[in-house]
């Protein structure tokens, strides 16, 4: 029983933290977010480091590592609020890796791993994806629904940009216009991993906004005391810690289970995404309250985290939907 990272995992985390802190300084993030765009060189650098395909097999150009390593990167990407098309590409990679045919895998995974031909995946209703991240710059789009999915070349889709409150990521509505190819199998194992990756990103967002709140509560004085000396603030921060660490623990459990105990993955992933989605909302909105007026200004970075957490919470299943899955998997049977 060892909940610690291996030395290699520690190294990945350290590298990611340091590099992302360098690349995504607050002013850089702000400039990109306000322009609603990415800087191509950012993703290219991450792909060169092998991050894009970290969980893919080596013969597909990946690193041959697993979901724990992906979760480590995702937490740091959330922490640094990196505006890069990473999650979308990883989602496509996970779906094709776990549910694609041999042909689909060999056709698309190398481009996903190298970042040369990125992919994206999104949930679809009536065949259309309402909110698909980075579809406007992807080479391949996978739309998922009803226990299956379809792989489209991006050129076979109508892609209309959708502006959400989260401008750290680009979204689009995707309507297939040409033919796609069905996945070879149920993408459920991939969806569990995507949910885990999102839970990790939310953990990073929560960690960062908790740190911002604690630091503000130490510095900001009102009535001749740092506000962090008041229990109305300090207990709020203690609650943030509970949510952050619980999100991290369940996320790491799900990430570990993905490879080590796959029968546990569905429950663990549903728990992690439910908990992290709620934590994302509770911690970031609580951080707004701790920051008072200044947190409500556009000039302060807090709202970018708040908005990303809100959208992440809804992507690939809300907290409520994942709780419903937890109930179903825990002896309460399927819902009526």
């Amino acid at each position: 029983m060892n909940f610690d990272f291996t030395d290699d995992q520690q190294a990945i985390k350290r590298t990611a933290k340091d590099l992302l802190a360098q690349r995504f300084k607050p002013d850089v993030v702000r400039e990109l977010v306000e322009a609603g765009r990415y800087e191509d060189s950012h993703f290219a650098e991450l792909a060169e480091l092998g991050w894009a395909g970290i969980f893919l097999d080596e013969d597909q150009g990946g690193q041959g590592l697993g979901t724990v390593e992906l979760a480590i990167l995702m937490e740091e990407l959330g922490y640094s609020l990196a505006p890069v098309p990473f999650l979308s590409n990883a989602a496509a990679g996970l779906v094709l890796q776990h549910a694609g045919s041999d042909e689909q895998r060999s056709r698309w995974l190398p481009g996903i791993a190298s970042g040369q031909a990125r992919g994206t995946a999104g949930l679809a209703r009536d065949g259309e994806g309402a909110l698909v991240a980075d579809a406007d710059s992807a080479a391949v789009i996978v739309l998922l629904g009803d226990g299956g999915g379809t792989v489209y070349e991006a050129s076979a889709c109508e892609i209309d940009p959708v502006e959400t409150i989260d401008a750290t990521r680009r979204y689009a509505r995707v309507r297939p216009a040409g033919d796609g190819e069905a996945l070879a199998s149920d993408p459920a194992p991939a969806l569990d991993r995507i949910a885990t990756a999102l839970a990790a990103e939310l953990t990073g967002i929560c960690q960062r906004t908790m740190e911002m709140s604690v630091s503000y509560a130490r510095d900001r004085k009102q009535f001749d005391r740092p506000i962090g000396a008041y229990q109305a603030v300090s207990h709020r921060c203690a609650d943030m810690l509970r949510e952050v660490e619980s999100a991290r623990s369940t996320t790491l459990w799900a990430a570990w289970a993905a490879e080590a105990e796959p029968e546990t993955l569905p429950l663990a992933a549903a728990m992690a995404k439910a908990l992290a989605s709620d934590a994302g909302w509770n911690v970031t909105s609580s951080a707004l309250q701790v920051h008072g007026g200044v947190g409500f200004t556009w000039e302060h970075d807090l709202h970018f985290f708040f908005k990303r957490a809100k959208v992440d919470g809804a992507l690939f299943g809300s907290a409520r939907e994942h709780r419903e899955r937890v109930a179903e998997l825990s002896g309460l049977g399927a819902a009526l």
Partner: protein
Amino acid sequence: MDLTLSPNEQAFRDVLRSWLAENHPGEEPTGDEAGFEFRVEWQKKLHAAGYAGVSWPEEFGGRGATLVEQAIYGEEMARAKTPSTANVLGLVMGGPVVIAHGSEEQKQRYLEPILSAEEIWCQGFSEPESGSDLASLKTRAVKSDGGWSVTGQKVWTTLAHVSKWCMLVARTDQDAPKHKGLTYFLMDMEQDAVQVRPLHQITGEAEFNELFIEDAYIPDENVLGGVGNGWSVAITTLMHERAGLGAAAAASVKIALGQLIELASEHGMADDPIVRQEIASLLIEAEALRLNAWRGLTAIMKTGTPGPEGSLPKLQWSAVNQGLTELAVTIQGEAGLAKDSDWTYRFLRARANSVEGGTTEILKNIIAERVLGLPKLR
């Protein structure tokens, strides 16, 4: 990262599990006296098999179990629904504190009777006026010939009525600052100067006692850790109370949640969307509690200090246990309000969870100040 048990840990669990399968003593009989005798026998059996002081070093009759093994022990005991040991405070607190702070003579004198349940221990810390603020306690010990004369009142002393020894903290220096003038004693309960009165709770049961102490005598050799060092010895005791409890608590709420799911099905509420959401929330929080507890243990084993997650299980356990027992009452509708029902008892008993062993408020203060480094309120 590897959340499976190591071969050694697995062996520890398998041996314990099969031992429990063969040696489980069954349900505790009703009646205070019969129940206590039963727990004494159970502890003797555990001791004979080397399962009484699992965390104690082998040289003192323990098993020298690692923190993970201690957690496994807690989980397995919860899972097998074993009775409590008769001398639970002696095993969990008394022994460890004697081992940490006691003299050679004290170790010789006290440890073995704790393990064998020949001498039961209780804890005399809390006072009516000193709850969360332990250092404000007023019980005083005055130096007399070869010992001390103690007068005061203690409260919440489980097992006092059957105890031989009380871990007593008393003020030996009235003039020293609050935390400095305290001394840790082992007080013989078998003297008329110590009166034990049962304290009934809102459940109707008397799980605790009050202690009225008037001119009790404690010889010098029963001071533990030196005169004036009572605060740090007491803190050691309380640290032992918390270590490893998380895993056992997680295992026990998991069992309770299984019972709750059954109850929901019996009452036709398993399909109810709101009940499903509430149960799922509890399941998730219970799992987070379990994982935080284990993560905290592996952090201590690796770095010697607990990570931030280690401060959470007590908080989380009280919230989950209060939440699940309340939901159990609600699910049963009018039947849930009946006085004599196991769930009703658990519902009422759970109300104390956010107070006993550190109130939720104090725990949040500790997290804010020690884990997050927020300024202390002065």
